[in-house]
């Protein structure tokens, strides 16, 4: 297993797209911090990068990689290796190389220019989101045999998590405006890793505003230590549930 991880990782770190992604993140992050005289405004600009671009690249790139590695995977499967190990090695390689790309491209500038609570939280959330979306990508690619269809599903999932889901929630919040929606809202946010990450960053960024009208849910659930731990646990669950499911699928898959 170690050998496969090593191979996948080395292959990925030399991959031109990964290098380009790292450079792209670094250029944007450094220019954002250099353009704004106020680092907290730079953080705000990077927020969209972390919540939108990072998941998109993670999910699309991972899906394409798995499809392109189909022959390599077939070769590995023909060897006396357990399928679980093969699949987990590919996941580990993908997730760690994407994390390295994010850390170098985005985490480093943040730690240099804005080593605050917000910056640290944003870096942590970027890493978690990367892992979550790599794992979702593996599920998407194991579910469909057709490459084009698989990439389509991956992009659709990204679109769902970043935009459609929030649109539906906003619609529901206005439809049920007359009812107490605080508790359902907590449940809604747990259904979307992007929302969870955003809320955790908001707690550091906009605490003054959040202590306003909706203080009850925020301070009771997300605000305290246990709530925060629970949120991070749910994020980790979001990373491993799709992975576990994809492992099961891969085990039975007729290649």
């Amino acid at each position: 297993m170690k050998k496969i991880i090593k191979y996948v990782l080395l292959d990925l770190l030399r991959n031109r797209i990964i290098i380009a992604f790292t450079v792209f993140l670094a250029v944007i992050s450094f220019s954002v911090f250099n353009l704004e005289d106020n680092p907290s405004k730079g953080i705000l600009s990077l927020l969209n990068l972390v919540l939108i671009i990072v998941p998109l690249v993670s999910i699309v790139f991972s899906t394409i990689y798995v499809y392109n590695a189909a022959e390599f995977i077939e070769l590995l499967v023909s060897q006396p290796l357990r399928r679980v190990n093969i699949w987990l090695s590919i996941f580990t390689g993908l997730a760690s190389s994407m994390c390295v790309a994010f850390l170098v491209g985005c985490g480093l500038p943040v730690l240099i220019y804005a080593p605050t609570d917000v910056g640290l939280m944003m870096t942590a959330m970027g890493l978690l989101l990367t892992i979550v979306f790599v794992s979702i990508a593996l599920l998407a690619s194991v579910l469909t045999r057709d490459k084009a269809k698989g990439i389509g599903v991956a992009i659709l999932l990204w679109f769902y998590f970043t935009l459609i889901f929030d649109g539906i929630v906003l619609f529901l919040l206005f439809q049920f405006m007359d009812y107490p929606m605080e508790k359902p809202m907590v449940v809604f946010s747990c259904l979307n890793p992007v929302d969870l990450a955003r809320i955790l960053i908001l707690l550091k960024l906009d605490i003054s505003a959040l202590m306003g009208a909706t203080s009850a849910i925020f301070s009771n659930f997300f605000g305290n230590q246990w709530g925060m731990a629970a949120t991070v646990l749910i994020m980790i669950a979001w990373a491993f549930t799709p992975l576990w499911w994809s492992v099961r699928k891969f085990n039975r898959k007729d290649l």
Partner: protein
Amino acid sequence: MLISLVVFTITAHAKTWIVRPATPLQKLQEAINNAMPGDTIIVEHGVYREPTIVVNKPLYIKGVGCPVLDGQKKNEIMVIKSSHVVIEGFSVQHSGYSGYNDIAAIRIVNSRNVTIRNNKLDDTFFGIYSQHAVSCTIANNELRSNAINEVTSANGIHCWKSDSMQIMNNTITGHRDGIYFEFVTHSTIKNNVSTGNVRYGLHFMFSNDDAYVGNQFRNNGAGVAVMFSKGVTMVQNIFFENWGSAAYGILLKEISDSRIQHNRFVRNTTGIYMEGTNRINVTQNVFYNNGWALKIQASCNDNTITQNNFQANSFDVATNGTLVLNTFNSNYWDKYEGYDLNHDGVGDVPYRPVSVYAMIAERNPVTMMLFRSFIASLLDKAEKTIPGFIPENLKDDQPRMKAFK
């Protein structure tokens, strides 16, 4: 010269009484009864447990080595019923508590030119209470109490129907309202620190022509409330970390002809909340890192908001209607995205400080959970291009490109 002569004769004849435990003169009240107007009473270090001490003649009463006046949680500790009294250097503690009487540690009644300075008040119901007082000075006192809720606690410095009061350099913490004014005119509140009070750091009603200068209001239950007054000057104050759904840096209700200048509003849920205010100038203030920098209700009229810095606030301005009768001009908004072609430091396109998400959150507070999401920024961008939901006239026609120093 006549005055100085009179002062000289008074000081020449003034006698000094020394109160000390375990001596014939060990009660402060006894010394006051024996003294003649204009005398000095020195109270030495020790604990004095007496019934309410009544000061009924002009005296200079000074504590040496911080003598303790203890109310034993039963009674009011000191009542001043004469003008020209100076109380200095005492530690006043454990006043009584009452649900129907206003029991105070030190009460000034119907007097002029009373000075209360350098005292420490601890565990008191009302701290320093003045009624019908004129030209009194309350300075350098440290007031501390342990209020738990609004019902069982009382105010630190409480002034009622007074005039020309000077309240300076006091520290007030753990009371209901730090400083409370009702029907107080021509007074100055300067360089006080009011923190961690259960309700308001400063609360005043029906008090005209007062000035608030260089005070610090931090972490109070509901910030500062200013109501039903006119001619109020608030300059160089700091409003810091007043958090909660009903907490404001300043709550302005029915205020007119006033000035708010050079203040700093940092990390409050709402910086300034205005309701039914008229002709207020809000100039040269800094709003930094607040939830809402300014909430200005449609009932406000003729207010001018100019030359302020709005930086790193979640929302700059929120309002509850489309009617705008106030002027926003020449402010610096860090969210401004316009350009300045002629480089005169003034943006060429107007800035609309009300974001559509502020309006949405105003109507449906739970939507704050979706704040800064992709869909929220899409809504904001769409609304900026074609305004339909936000008040069309609430705009700054000359937004600054650089922050004011």
